[in-house]
């Protein structure tokens, strides 16, 4: 009789612990889900920023842009024939 009571008590305690544990874990998981959502949003924003930067870089490095900068602003020209030294391979 005593042993059965003890077993019942233990099961009761374990049950309570498990119940509390579930509540706690569930709470945790919701917190983590919110955190994950925030991180995903951050990732999305970073990706968006990356694509914008890529575009900006592409626009700045556009051959037409570079050519006009070189010719107009920096006054660069193609060297004449006689200034090119060809090394025979």
């Amino acid at each position, binding site marked *: 009789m005593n042993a059965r009571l003890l077993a019942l008590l233990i099961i009761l305690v374990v049950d309570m612990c498990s119940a509390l544990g579930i509540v706690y874990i569930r709470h945790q998981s919701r917190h983590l889900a919110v955190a994950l959502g925030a991180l995903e949003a951050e990732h999305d924003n970073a*990706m968006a920023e990356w694509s914008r930067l890529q575009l900006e870089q592409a626009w700045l490095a556009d*051959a037409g842009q570079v050519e006009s900068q070189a010719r107009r602003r920096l006054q660069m020209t193609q060297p004449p024939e006689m200034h090119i030294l060809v090394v025979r391979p």
Partner: protein
Amino acid sequence: MSAARNSHVRASRLYALLLIFFLVSLALVARAVKLQVAQTEFLQGQGEARFLREVDIPTTRGMISDRNGEPLAVSTPVESVWVNPGEVLQVPEKLGLLAKVLETDADELERKLTQRSAREFVWLRRRLHPDMASQIEALKIQGVYLQKEYRRFYPAGEVAAHVVGFTNIDDIGQEGLELAYNDWLIGEAGRKRVIKDRLGRTVEEVELVKQASPGKDLQLTIDRRLQYLAYTELKRTVLKHGARSGSVVLMDLHNGEILAMVNQPSYNPNQPDGSSEGLRNRAVTDVFEPGSVMKPFAVTSMLEAGIVTPGTPVETSPGTLVISGHTIRDHHNYGLLDVTGVLTKSSNVGVTKLALELSPEHMWDTYRRYGFGEATGSGFPGESAGVLRNHQRWRRLEHATIAYGYGISATALQLAQAYAVIASGGVLRQPTLIQGAINPPISMVDPVLARQVADMLETVTGPAGTGKQARVANYRIAGKTGTSRKASASGYASRYVASFAGFAPASNPRLVCVVIVNDPTGEQYYGGDVAAPLFANVVGGALRLMNVPPDDYPALFAQSATDAEGAAR
């Protein structure tokens, strides 16, 4: 008596109780009806707000880049604005503000929304400017929502427009490689089931319904710098000669990779305006009668048949030849030439005389092996196969004209492929626009004969040739000019297609380039005057950018000698 009164009291109690029960249940039913009928919208909204939901996991379309990883097409998120007309129309006074931000007419906006008031979702404007989006967000009008969408940008603009193509507003490829590789680029949005709280935050991910697969990137063989070079040179030439259109194809002989493919007219893929004139990638979709640029293939056929060697003399005087009542003419009477000279001078009479000694079947077979009459298999949408009629249907006149490039049609890309066969010792490689494509070399022509033809073609840019303007300093250039009259409803009109096809450096070919200028309306219309200088500019720039060592040593020595003299003086 008392028993009777007792029972009476009991009955009235019962009725009273029943009445109370009835009233209570009536109240419940009334409440239920009220909730169900009158407040459905509110309650449903509230319920949905904190319930199990399936949401999309968005993906982006893959990036298209050039051979060096420079972006040619990139998707980036932008905001689109949509409304729930029912909600917005409850606050009509705010419509003015909204219309002002959107730069539209308030009355028109209201009319539009009233017409669609039965719906719950109406796009107002898609792909907003970021400033406009933040203004709309600041207005905080009920029923107006912003939705993140992806917009495709093409930093190379019109320069690579034909190759890359563009997508429509729903991000589906419409033209070019965006269309051809749509499935590869597009990716697939996933779905997941989540529980959201009242504020719309996801509190729990219940399950992943479908894994999202992001769009894959696509790397092209195009070199953006060469593409730009070819495009600006082509545009300049087309403007200078008042031409209707033009194309340039530049190909790497080592692997069949297309380094540049440009056309005029072009369009801005960031804002395609729907006019179809500039949309076609003419280098691949449009066929033309190539004219004299076809002569090397007829000569290959003669060499294969063993009826001539490069030195065999051919009498071309008096510069005309009558075949089936049709006169074939040369520009001048060139007199006695050899086979090399026929190519150097581009003699129609010479090539026709010799070609008529060939069997049509053999000539047809040679042309087929060079890839004519069959799409190259580049995988480009709308690629044309050109026309090469079966030899059994050739009449004698056709047999003659096909030798110098009439009665047959081809695309610029086919010509590039065919010249690549000559340049690379008889080996055909399928031209490709995609990195990592599998295009094993296929032997099509005897390497010795291909070399002979290549050597003959080098004389075209020599002192006696028609293509002197295709020369590039310090490099040996081989190629062939072409000037073909355009066929029209009333026979051949006095409108022309000027072309030049060739490769460089001639001693160890690396690049093949085909230039087509359609309908130059200026005084000059010969391939040697219109197309050859463009070829020289494109190939010269490309050889320099690709660090191909010069091979024209005699010219180099002569030049350094004069330089030294000049310096000494």
